[in-house]
């Protein structure tokens, strides 16, 4: 596992702005995390025996019927929005 990463690219993907200082400190933190995770590669795993089907829950997935259940009203749904207009949530301009 490589410890190399591009902090600027990660910030871009997360749509956040980082100062030089923040970039340095977060790079340090991330390096420590990656090193920690790298410990996994020391495990001797026999890929023949392990099922590559890892999930934290052993429970089987339950499905629900296709029947409508009323939930939030329009006013409730929008009540916490810092800004709204014509029934829509309004956020700063963002486009791909």
């Amino acid at each position, binding site marked *: 596992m490589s410890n190399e990463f591009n902090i600027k690219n990660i910030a871009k993907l997360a749509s956040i702005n980082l100062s030089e200082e923040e970039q340095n400190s977060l790079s340090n933190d991330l390096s420590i995390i990656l090193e920690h995770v790298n410990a996994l590669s020391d495990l001797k795993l026999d890929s023949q025996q392990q099922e590559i089907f890892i999930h934290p829950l052993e429970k089987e997935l339950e499905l629900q019927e296709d029947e409508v259940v009323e*939930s939030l009203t329009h006013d409730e749904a929008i009540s916490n929005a810092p800004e709204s207009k014509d029934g829509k949530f309004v956020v700063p301009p963002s486009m791909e």
Partner: protein
Amino acid sequence: MSLKPTIGIETHIELNTNTKMFCRCAVVDTDEPNISLCPTCIGLPGALPVPNKKAIEFITLLALSTGCEITSKGMFHRKNYFYPDLPKNYQISQFDLPVGLNGELEIVIGENNDYIQIERVHMEEDTGKSSHSGSGRIESATSTALDFNRSGVPLVEIVTKPVISSSKQAVAYIEELRQLSIDLNISEGRLEKGNLRFDANISVAPEDSTELGTKVEIKNMNSLRSLERAIDYEIQRQSKALEGGVEIVQETRHWDENKEITSTMRSKEGSADYRYFSDPDLPNMFLSDEFIKEVETLMPLLPKVQREELMTTGLSLSQSNILSKSDDWIKKLYVKVFDQTKDSVSSYNWITGELQGQMRKANIDVLPKWFNDNYLSEIIELIKSNKISFTSAKIILNEILTTETTPSKVAEQKNLFQENDSEKISEMINQIIKENQDIVDRIKSGEDKLVGFLVGQLMKQSNGSVNPGMAKELLLKELEG
């Protein structure tokens, strides 16, 4: 340099379930924003997703109908990206264990068929809809407004292998997939409503190259027409670049419907950028043999099989293809009329040509209640037995579409039955000859064309009731004699 294009298509089909994929909010078709929401589909903290059983049935049905291998042990993944129409900051999707793998779909172009290989069929959820205010141009918007009614609506994504070689094949593929989803009853299949949305991955490489060129993804094609034009434009753009020695950049381009060009949207994110990981909120999904068998019982007659059956009635592949992609009532009407007349060509021509043409002209969407399936057969039989002319048949059809009556009643009332009695016709011919002696003289002196004039006179005097073929034959005999 001889170049060849290679195209792969990703299609999203919106399923016509009552409720959303991971919550029980109603799937709504309305302009009224944010009226069908709950904590799950607007990503409030603590809300947990539970998959919709019907949606899983539908995707399994689609995967089976395209001959996919079903992944009996599957799972959901989180696809992480940040955009306001995705309130959780990840989309629940499937990564390496999609519901279906390695299928194929038959397409038809004219009298030829071909198979498009399908790489995968996976389940995911739709995003909300964003609109940008300001001058109308996305670049100069001052704010973004969000409607989450669509957020969480079940979407099936079908990805083809890069095997499509032209815009025509791409269009035929989407047409087939659309019809399949309608016949499976898993989607309305309405392109204008966004029920089917597609992106195309296009690359161009030298004809003899074994490797594919750099692929460019085209988005925002919302009709078959724009799909065709966008692909043609992009193939041309890339070919020109390669011929001019310019390198193609891997990117996502946007189809501009008005300018009819593609333009750079963003450089393409790699799959690693989405940081897929299994969704800890959703346990593994097992599709049991029992479940699959149950879904198989829902399988309708697939378009491919419909075409094969229609061809046994004597229709060509292209005719069968057109019928297989027609509304259900048209398919049923054809089968009925063919059963009665055993005349595939007439049945096909009357239904897809005259009947649908007249209905369009008169703005009729559904056949009137009184319109008996036997009426078309009756009209076809009347023409074949020379009792009415083709022109009269059209008049009759028009009448029975707009008035509660029957073909024979109309023929009777409008005096459209052809006179096939040669004695009666001869009588009329003698009368015409008497009245047009000068014309007869000119015919006799070589002006053959004027025979048509006399037949016309005869048709006029008989109100079109004379069988014109018979009339001409008898007239010629009379003139010779």
